[in-house]
């Protein structure tokens, strides 16, 4: 690698980073607006205009940025920034539309799993740093929720990687390999059921990852007055607001990349720029659908759970569900070879 190549790569990464940061923030807020509008319509309200989140951010920027006297100022101010930075950096490892990940060979699925922890961790630490009892209660709830949903999430990610490793895919944790070998194509009938179970689990994990109803007890406005965010105001709150938006995009893109990595351009036979355009559009539609199902619908349909109920939900029913998914996939792989439908038919003398 010579100097020119390195500088070209560096330039690409810099431009890509800036672009993705702006992309993430813009679409995060846009989807937030769409989500609010849709849920309002589902509840028979008119709802705010779609550009309302942008106005909210601008409004927050003009408000006073209060640092409470019980807070530890440097941690209190740093936490929102760190959260936003970590969230945006995940976008660089995710394939968006027809584009491969910008840093495709420099980070993998486990890294994304860990980077997804950082925004929640930043919120937790920010909440603890506010020094308010409400925020502390909210923050410890957020941490408990995090441990809770990480169990099924780990099962999902490891199951997918395990399945791919049996298919002989190299670098099974790299997003680019997962996208290039969609999991549905290699699964048998039982494995297919297994993956559907995993998809359902992941869709239920998403609201907790994003602190949305029914898993929003860390922020529960009606009981602990906003919880983690109770002491935040002004630009610090705006940072958390943006983090939330970007994180929605990240989670939706992750689901899209893991389960629906298909593109439209091969279907139409487009190349070059039309292909980019149609793939990006298709990707945005997929993200919208994922958000519709995993955030909006669940949010409208279900009421908030208590914190011990959240932990129970994730550690018992959902973990068991995802383990069933895992077992289905393992069964598909090992037992179908010996006791598959063909063998069963043969044993019954049908073939």
């Amino acid at each position: 690698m010579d100097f020119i190549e390195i500088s070209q790569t560096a330039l690409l990464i810099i431009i890509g980073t800036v672009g993705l940061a702006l992309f993430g923030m813009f679409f995060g807020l846009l989807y937030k607006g769409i989500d609010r509008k849709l849920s309002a319509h589902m509840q028979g309200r008119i709802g705010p205009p779609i550009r309302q989140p942008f106005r909210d951010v601008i409004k927050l920027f003009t408000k006073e940025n209060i640092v409470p006297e019980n807070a530890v100022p440097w941690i209190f101010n740093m936490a929102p920034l760190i959260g936003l930075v970590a969230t945006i950096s995940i976008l660089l490892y995710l394939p968006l539309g027809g584009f491969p990940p910008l840093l495709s060979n420099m980070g993998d699925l486990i890294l994304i799993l860990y980077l997804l922890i950082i925004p929640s961790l930043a919120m937790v630490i920010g909440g603890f740093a506010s020094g308010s009892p409400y925020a502390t209660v909210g923050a410890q709830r957020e941490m408990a929720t995090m441990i809770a949903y990480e169990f099924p999430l780990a099962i999902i990610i490891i199951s997918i990687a395990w399945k791919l490793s049996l298919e002989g895919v190299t670098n099974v944790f790299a997003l680019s390999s997962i996208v290039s070998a969609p999991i549905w194509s290699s699964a048998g009938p039982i494995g297919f059921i297994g993956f559907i179970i995993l998809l359902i689990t992941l869709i239920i994990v998403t609201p907790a990852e994003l602190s949305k109803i029914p898993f929003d007890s860390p922020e529960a406005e009606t009981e602990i007055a906003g919880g983690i965010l109770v002491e935040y105001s002004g630009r610090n709150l705006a940072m958390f607001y943006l983090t939330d938006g970007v994180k929605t995009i990240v989670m939706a893109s992750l689901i899209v990349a893991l389960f629906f990595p298909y593109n439209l351009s091969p279907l139409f036979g487009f190349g070059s720029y039309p292909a980019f355009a149609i793939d990006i559009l298709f990707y945005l539609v997929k993200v919208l659908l994922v958000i519709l199902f995993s955030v909006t619908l669940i949010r409208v349909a279900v009421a908030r759970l208590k914190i011990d109920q959240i932990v129970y939900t994730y550690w018992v029913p959902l973990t068991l569900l995802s383990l069933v998914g895992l077992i289905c996939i393992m069964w598909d792989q090992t037992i179908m070879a010996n006791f598959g439908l063909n063998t069963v038919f043969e044993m019954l003398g049908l073939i």
Partner: protein
Amino acid sequence: MSMLETLLGTFQTGSGFWNPIVWIIVAALVFLITYILRGFGNKKYKKGTEQVKSFLSGNPEYEKEKMHVKGSNLFWGFTESLKWIFDILHKMHTGNISDYVLWFVIVMAVLFLLVGLM
């Protein structure tokens, strides 16, 4: 140049990658962007007024010790829903030296069984 490449090298696990330096560079870049963005916001607030008091739904503030949630009260929801596990664990740790030796003997017996079955 080779030195630079070694330092920038991606860490390969056989199934994935991790390049800390590039992540640091990217994160620094994003930090710069967000920091500038944050700079557009209003910096001021009124120090020493009612504003900086903790929000307690209008209740008067307690003394500082009571405002600090104690360490052993954290993660209530988690310990509550998995209470039976923690109860068993608590019973296991008696703090009695005889029990420590007993556990050692039990583990040895189990290992004897496992290795003997081999």
